[in-house]
């Protein structure tokens, strides 16, 4: 499988190119929340998308889509076009048969703002005013279904849900769709739009979020001794995956190979990471056991690293357990230091970042590491982007883990 298209709608930019520029420049997308509802919240910072979707989508379309589906649609359109497709597969102008095209888009929470906003409408304005679009807007498969409609996907539209691993699991599912012959092309990724008082308070009451309201741009600080939780982000990242044969036959531009995925589950705790990294290590082992990938090829990891005290350390321990001394030669980037944590969208935008890191042979930085945690015994790309080896075939991993103990590791490699 190969990646032939990318799209990103993120706190650092409204398309993949500006997202990548922002990452390389070490920009933070985190800002103070200035909305009236935020004033009394314990957490008043978030990484909102850089461009409002209402500036891109026509109003009649936007009002029928949850914000998470708006993000996904914009990113998917970009990826579709980037892959060289002009028309949906259902259009005769596109030689791709719709029966050979799939769409797999996930989010962690689904249309939560629609659900909560419409409940407000019900209470404040009555039964008659609840939007008839509420159900197709709030269902978690709505972004996948809307992207499937957009590109004309008839091989299957799917939405795996695994909290913050959802986006990565979607891309893994897409890889399997192609590997098992169900499709030749799959549009895949993750999206999330949960910047709303209820999710913020709920995560905050779990003691999972940074409360560094005074210094938003430095609040997301994976691997730093002073890290105090994640910063909520929003947005979407989508790729077009294609069988190598299909891509070659149509002469498509190829960013990199999608090697495969490794999966595991912790069976440890509903929301705490397994502290020794054993669960994550099993996912990494699974990746190498089931795919033709040599550890020595891995030169870069886009880490899950959300900036929580326990999670960041457990992930590094898992990488050390599985890669051993080779980990010293692996450039690790925690891009959530810049984008915040997009929950189900994280696996989407971080896959786009990983694909671009391989394609350009450069690893984006991890910002805000002022005082590296002593437990982080690994080569963190700090402050500035770093060149990856210019010669030979190189591979990179993208890690995503979710509440519930879901571990997903995706692997990509230069062609």
């Amino acid at each position: 499988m190969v990646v032939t298209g990318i799209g990103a709608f993120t706190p650092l930019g409204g398309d993949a190119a500006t997202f990548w520029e922002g990452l390389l420049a070490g920009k933070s997308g985190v800002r103070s929340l200035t909305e009236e509802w935020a004033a009394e919240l314990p957490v008043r910072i978030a990484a909102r998308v850089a461009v409002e979707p209402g500036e891109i989508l026509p109003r009649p379309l936007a009002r029928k889509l949850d914000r998470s589906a708006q993000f996904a649609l914009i990113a998917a359109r970009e990826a579709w076009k980037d892959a060289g497709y002009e028309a949906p597969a259902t259009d005769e102008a596109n030689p791709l048969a719709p029966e050979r095209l799939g769409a797999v888009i996930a989010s962690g929470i689904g249309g939560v703002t629609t659900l909560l906003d419409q409940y407000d409408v019900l209470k404040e304005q009555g039964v008659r005013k609840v939007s008839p679009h509420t159900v197709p807007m709030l269902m978690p498969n709505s972004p996948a279904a809307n992207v499937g409609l957009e590109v004309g996907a008839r091989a299957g539209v799917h939405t795996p849900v695994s909290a913050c691993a959802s986006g990565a699991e979607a891309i893994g599912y897409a890889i399997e769709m192609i590997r098992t012959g169900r499709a030749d092309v799959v549009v895949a990724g993750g999206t999330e739009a949960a910047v709303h008082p209820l999710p913020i308070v709920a995560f905050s009451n779990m003691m999972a979020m940074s409360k560094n309201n005074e210094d938003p741009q430095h609040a997301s600080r994976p691997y730093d001794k002073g890290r105090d939780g994640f910063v909520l982000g929003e947005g979407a990242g989508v790729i077009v995956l294609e069988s190598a044969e299909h891509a070659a036959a149509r002469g498509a531009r190829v960013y990199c190979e999608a090697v495969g995925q490794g999966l595991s589950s912790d069976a440890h705790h509903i929301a705490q990471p397994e502290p020794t990294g054993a669960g994550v290590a099993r996912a990494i082992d699974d990746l190498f056991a089931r795919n033709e990938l040599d550890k020595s090829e891995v030169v870069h990891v886009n880490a899950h690293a959300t900036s929580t005290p326990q999670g960041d350390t457990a992930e590094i321990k898992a990488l050390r357990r599985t890669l051993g001394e080779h980990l010293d030669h692996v450039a690790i980037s925690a891009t959530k230091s810049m984008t915040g944590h997009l929950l189900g969208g994280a696996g989407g935008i971080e896959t786009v970042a990983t694909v671009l890191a391989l394609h350009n042979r450069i690893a984006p930085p991890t910002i805000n590491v002022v005082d590296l945690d002593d437990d982080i015994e690994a080569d963190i790309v700090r402050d500035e982007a770093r060149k990856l080896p210019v010669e030979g075939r190189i591979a990179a991993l993208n890690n995503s883990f979710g509440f519930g103990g879901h571990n997903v590791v995706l692997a990509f490699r230069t062609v």
Partner: protein
Amino acid sequence: MATREEVLEGLAEIVNEIAGIPVEDVALDKSFTDDLDVDSLSMVEVVVAAEERFGAKIPDDEVKNLKTVGDAVDFIVANV
């Protein structure tokens, strides 16, 4: 009492808001579904907005009979 012209003008504004169709294209002979991109879900929105604007009550089982803009104008004028 709203005149037919006033109801048509109001409906045109509602359809413009919901489906993005230019007001001047919302004519009496236009079908909501076939011409104006108003699907069955959006039709519910049109009905609720029209009820609010004209003070009419449009029963749920009446909505399926409102195929064209003209049908809706007639019903609203007769039932306000």
